[in-house]
């Protein structure tokens, strides 16, 4: 070998070692360590503060609702723009007194006219009636009339400054420059943006509430959550992180993850028109055979995430006022199945009855496949065959509408907010083929009730029916994961886990 050849090889090996070394380099010192400024990785663009455009939590930095849900276990409502309110006995007419110390970021005082203007504007641009009619009483009070009774003032809609928008053409509502340079009334005010890259906000010194400790925040836009952004110190917060990121930051004390408990649940919808699932004790057996606690660990869910077999209201979930779920008990499941006439007569490892094998296909979206594989193994241990079919979400919805499925794993809206949709699963036109007169009538009452306590009481009446019938198996609740730098404080799991939602109450140690 000539010296030149040897030299080339040595250079090549050194080069490869260098690349290998920098590829394995870990624990980079985080760059963004400002005590009062956060950079948050977020999906969106410079119109992120427009609620009807993105509908994201960041809207509430700039614009405010009348009231908001308290982000803790109390599950109560807290006044924001509204100072006080009264309601009629039928919960359809609400008279609201607005705070008098609210100023838009340009210094103009907010009045009830802004509320009416925003409600009317929304109706005009969306082209449908909406829930409210607003009638002005005086400068700072107004009356809201709703089509259906409501248990609380709306926590969702925010309000816009009439004086800046009234002369703009509603035809171009979504294209208004105002959304790129918004003037709101919230704890933060817009500072600047770099199109398709970021928006920056800073504390509003005239905010009527407590001054936030985080003085400035940047939303850095990304098409998908990027762990590299966090690891390289480019951002302090990664919102809506896929849970597999948690394995990658395990043991890295620079970061901490928080999990927000949503009102949806990953659920198995059994097709009650399928003879396999007609019997309630069979559905109970199937639920008993699934180890949901271990499954939630496999899926990297937080340890204390509540598992349930029943529908619940937000207040009940907030107070953990939930009945105990069926335990993991494969022996009891087998006994229930045997009692229902299912046994493995031909010793092929699958239960059968009257010559029919207990085998079915579960359809689901790709992201739920791990969950399905786990359930498949659970059911296999009690001799039930489950095939997995992965399809697109829209097709699942079509299968549901046509009742053309065995079982489906999908998100189910386990909340009083979606009663109109939830009840369609249990009425005469049930998509899952399950009609229960009692549930149907209870939902009809709930839909026309505004009394929160009454709604809670009616939901309690649903509990024994669900426990008895198990029309749907709730697997695990919906959880959104956010990863933040560990020196960011003020967040907690389940109810106060969203750093964007809770920005005004965060601080950095």
């Amino acid at each position, binding site marked *: 070998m000539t010296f030149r050849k040897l030299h080339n090889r040595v250079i090549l090996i050194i080069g490869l070692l260098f690349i290998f070394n920098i590829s394995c380099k870990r624990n980079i010192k985080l760059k963004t360590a400002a005590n009062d400024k956060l950079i948050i990785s977020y999906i969106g663009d410079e119109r992120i503060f427009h609620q009807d455009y993105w509908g994201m939590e960041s809207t509430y930095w700039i614009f405010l609702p009348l009231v908001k849900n308290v982000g803790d276990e109390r599950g109560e409502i807290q006044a924001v723009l509204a100072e006080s309110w009264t309601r009629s006995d039928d919960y359809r007419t609400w008279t609201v007194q607005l705070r008098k110390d609210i100023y838009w970021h340009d210094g103009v005082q907010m009045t009830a006219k802004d509320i009416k203007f925003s409600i009317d504007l929304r109706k005009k641009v969306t082209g449908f009636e909406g829930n409210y009619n607003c009638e002005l009483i005086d400068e700072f009070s107004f009356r809201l009339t709703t089509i259906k009774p409501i248990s609380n003032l709306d926590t969702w809609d925010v309000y816009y400054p009439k004086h800046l928008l009234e002369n703009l053409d509603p035809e171009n509502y979504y294209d208004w420059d105002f959304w790129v340079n918004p003037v709101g009334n919230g704890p933060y005010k817009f500072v600047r943006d770099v199109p398709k890259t970021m928006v920056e906000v800073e504390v509003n010194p005239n905010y009527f509430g407590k001054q936030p400790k985080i003085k400035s925040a940047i939303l*850095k836009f990304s098409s998908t959550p*990027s762990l590299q952004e966090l690891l390289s110190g480019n951002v302090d917060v990664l919102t809506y992180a896929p849970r597999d990121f948690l394995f990658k930051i395990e043991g890295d004390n620079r970061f901490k993850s928080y999990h927000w408990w949503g009102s949806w649940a990953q659920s198995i919808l059994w097709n009650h028109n399928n003879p396999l699932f007609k019997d309630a004790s069979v559905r109970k057996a199937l639920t008993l055979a699934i180890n949901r606690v271990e499954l939630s660990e496999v899926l990297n869910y937080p340890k204390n995430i509540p598992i349930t077999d029943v529908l619940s209201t937000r207040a009940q979930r907030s107070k953990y006022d939930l009945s105990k779920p069926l335990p993991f008990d494969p022996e009891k499941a087998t006994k229930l199945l045997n009692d229902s006439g299912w046994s493995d007569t031909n010793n092929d490892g699958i239960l059968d009855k009257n010559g029919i094998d207990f085998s079915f296909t579960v359809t689901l979206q790709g992201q739920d496949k791990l969950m399905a594989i786990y359930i498949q193994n659970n059911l296999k241990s009690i001799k039930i065959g489950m095939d997995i079919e992965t399809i697109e*979400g*829209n097709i699942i919805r079509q299968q549901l509408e046509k009742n053309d499925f065995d079982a489906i794993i999908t998100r189910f809206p386990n909340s009083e907010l979606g009663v109109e949709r939830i009840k369609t699963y249990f009425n005469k036109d049930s998509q899952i083929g399950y009609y229960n007169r009692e549930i149907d009538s209870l939902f009809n009452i709930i839909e026309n009730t505004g009394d929160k306590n009454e709604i809670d009481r009616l939901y309690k009446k649903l509990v024994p029916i669900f426990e008895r019938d198990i029309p749907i198996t709730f697997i695990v609740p919906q959880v959104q994961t956010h990863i933040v730098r560990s020196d960011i404080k003020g967040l907690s799991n389940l109810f106060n886990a969203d750093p964007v939602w809770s920005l005004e109450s965060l601080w950095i140690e």
Partner: protein
Amino acid sequence: MLLGIASLVFFIIHIAPGDPLDMLINQYQRNVPSPETIEAFRIKYGLDQPIHIQYFKWLQNCLAGDLGESFRYHRPVTTLITERIPFTIQLTFLALLFDALFGILLGIISAVKQYTLTDKIISVGSLIIYSIPGFWLALMLILIFSVNLGWLPLSQTRSLDYDLLSGVDQFKDRLMHLILPVFVLGIASAASTARYLRSRLLEVLNEEFILAARARGIKEKAVIFSHALKNALIPIITIYGMSLPFLLGGSVLIESIFSWPGMGSLAIEAVQNRDYPLILATTMMGAILVVLGNLLADIMYAIVDPRVSYDT
């Protein structure tokens, strides 16, 4: 052709199972819309009409230059495309340039230094690079140059303080953000160009007119660049014209990895949200690029090879 593609896409997306208004349900998951609200949207966007009526209305508007309003963004599709297309053109054009510069250069070196170590390194290297999946290469480069070394930005088109920089710094900033995505998008096609050009050039170098040129005492550089390369480049130019839409396709993935706000990421969002007007518009853009690519290839072909004429 454009009309044919657009019509085909129109019917395929409408026949495909699913409902674009499902997106609304997901968008408003904290405040579930009522069936009446969903129906109102259906009427607003004309989705309650029979498919052939929807088609003719869309065609009529399309011919008048109105590509409709995005279901997801509620903004004119033309505005959304106008906002995004400069980013994609920038990325694709520079990737093509990178491909042309490095692909042709390496192809020439490899052919001229046939069977030497340089030729072997270029040949094997380009084969390896061509075989590496673009997304993996992108992730590795991000890991090395952005996460670990911190030399290059790992995503987006500009820095967070872009608007506060001077003109020169803004230019430098844009350039830094372009390095990784352009490299990843252009390197595979450069490798392919290099290999293709090498074999083509070797063929040409063995032809009789090259022998004649050398016999006339023309310098080797002139033989290669003026005689051989000009002939070898003719098929390459055709490939470039055809590669324009492929580069656009490749940029879909690269844009997603680098959070690049171009047409690719817009197309992905459109498909995910079943945003019919946006899907149709982005597909049309792809079709226009195919036509443009072919047209450009034909023009360049005529320029490079004087025997080719489109007069008749």
